[in-house]
């Protein structure tokens, strides 16, 4: 029949993106990473519980944003490269090494890929560190936000961040920032995932939607 749309639903032909809010912050002795859990294809949510915090090594994680396929692939490749590297040097890799590997892929294929990974972790040499690899640059920062939801929380993180926060304060900071972003960004939502990395190792946590903090309009 003329003019009839295809039998398949629209979302099957839309690119799958992790709309997303991701955040990582360093504190004395470690880092905290956080992300939301929504994966969208156009206007449909194709996964409402995806964990966007991906391990690159025991004490190094990355946070994924942008195209879901691109981000996952970069993380898997770097995970493999880091395993080889850490066997060659005979010890745990540096966070900077992991970030450099991510940056190398992001920069070399910057025209083809559309993913932004924040790399954070703990190593013996420099403690907790956060690296930004957007568009193929490499920059260490005290904290970093990324993804579509990050626009809405720049003001909040600029106002609330202080140097020398404790682990607990950093975790609260991350949860508050994620909640505020999820409240305003249609492409972010679901549950909040947290990973805290320090000398002892990495501890993962999931905070369901009803346990997130509420603000004045709720």
């Amino acid at each position, binding site marked *: 029949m003329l003019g009839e749309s295809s039998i398949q639903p629209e979302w099957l032909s839309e690119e799958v993106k992790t709309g997303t809010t991701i955040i990582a912050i360093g504190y004395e002795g470690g880092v905290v990473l956080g992300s939301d859990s929504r994966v969208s294809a156009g206007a449909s949510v194709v996964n409402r519980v995806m964990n966007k915090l991906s391990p690159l090594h025991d004490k190094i994680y990355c946070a994924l944003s942008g195209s879901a396929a691109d981000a996952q692939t970069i993380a898997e490749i770097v995970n493999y490269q880091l395993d080889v590297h850490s066997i060659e040097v005979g010890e745990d890799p540096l966070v900077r090494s992991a970030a450099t590997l991510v940056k190398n892929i992001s920069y070399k294929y910057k025209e083809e890929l559309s993913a932004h990974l924040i790399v954070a972790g703990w190593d013996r040499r420099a403690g907790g560190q956060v690296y930004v690899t957007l568009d193929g640059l490499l920059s260490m920062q005290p904290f970093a936000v990324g993804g579509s939801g990050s626009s*809405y929380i720049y*003001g909040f993180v600029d*106002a609330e961040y202080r*140097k020398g926060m404790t682990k607990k304060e950093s975790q609260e900071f991350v949860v508050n920032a994620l909640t*505020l972003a999820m409240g305003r960004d249609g492409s972010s939502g679901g549950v909040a995932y947290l990973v805290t990395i320090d000398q002892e190792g990495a501890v993962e946590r999931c905070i369901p939607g009803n346990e997130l903090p509420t603000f004045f309009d709720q």
Partner: protein
Amino acid sequence: WAPLSSSPHTNSTTIMAVEFDGGVVIGADSRTTTGAYIANRVTDKLTPIHDRIFCCRSGSAADTQAIADAVSYQLGFHSIELDEPPLVQTAANLFKQMCYRYREELMAGIIVAGWDKRRGGQVYTVPMGGMLVRQPVSVGGSGSSYIYGFIDSKYKSGMTKEECLRFTADALALAMERDGSSGGVVRLAAITESGLERSVILGNQLPTFFSA
């Protein structure tokens, strides 16, 4: 090479308005751009529509000035007919009618705020497209995206006038720090039954925050 480009003048902006018991506080940055050139770095985007009613303008400078002029005229006339100061809701509806009717041609995001005897301090937002909604706190312009999180976390009802002024100045400073299209000075105004208090916060006196 044309720094004075042929792009239209826009107030890509940050504007904000907050209700408190007894009035409203409104604020805006002061940057008007044509392309990448800052045509006016000390713009006044807080425009009086009537004695106790102001509007905050964002979007095309020409469009918003023309709309504000037209609504001031209509409201002035209406107020004389009524023999009473006009309601903020009336002003907001006049803005809405014009912004909705000419929605395809206009690029205007306007926040209407003021005080009247019937409902006290009120803030109405008329974003692009021409909808109208009353909100206790409203932000607009390109810089507003960056401060939604800050506003959601910091706003509480029942703030005093001074707290609202502080809150608005902080929010605008944060937005101006992140948004390339916002900057300059912060212009504030507090509108109450007794009148109008305008103030300016110069660049070097703005509140400072952490920047990564």
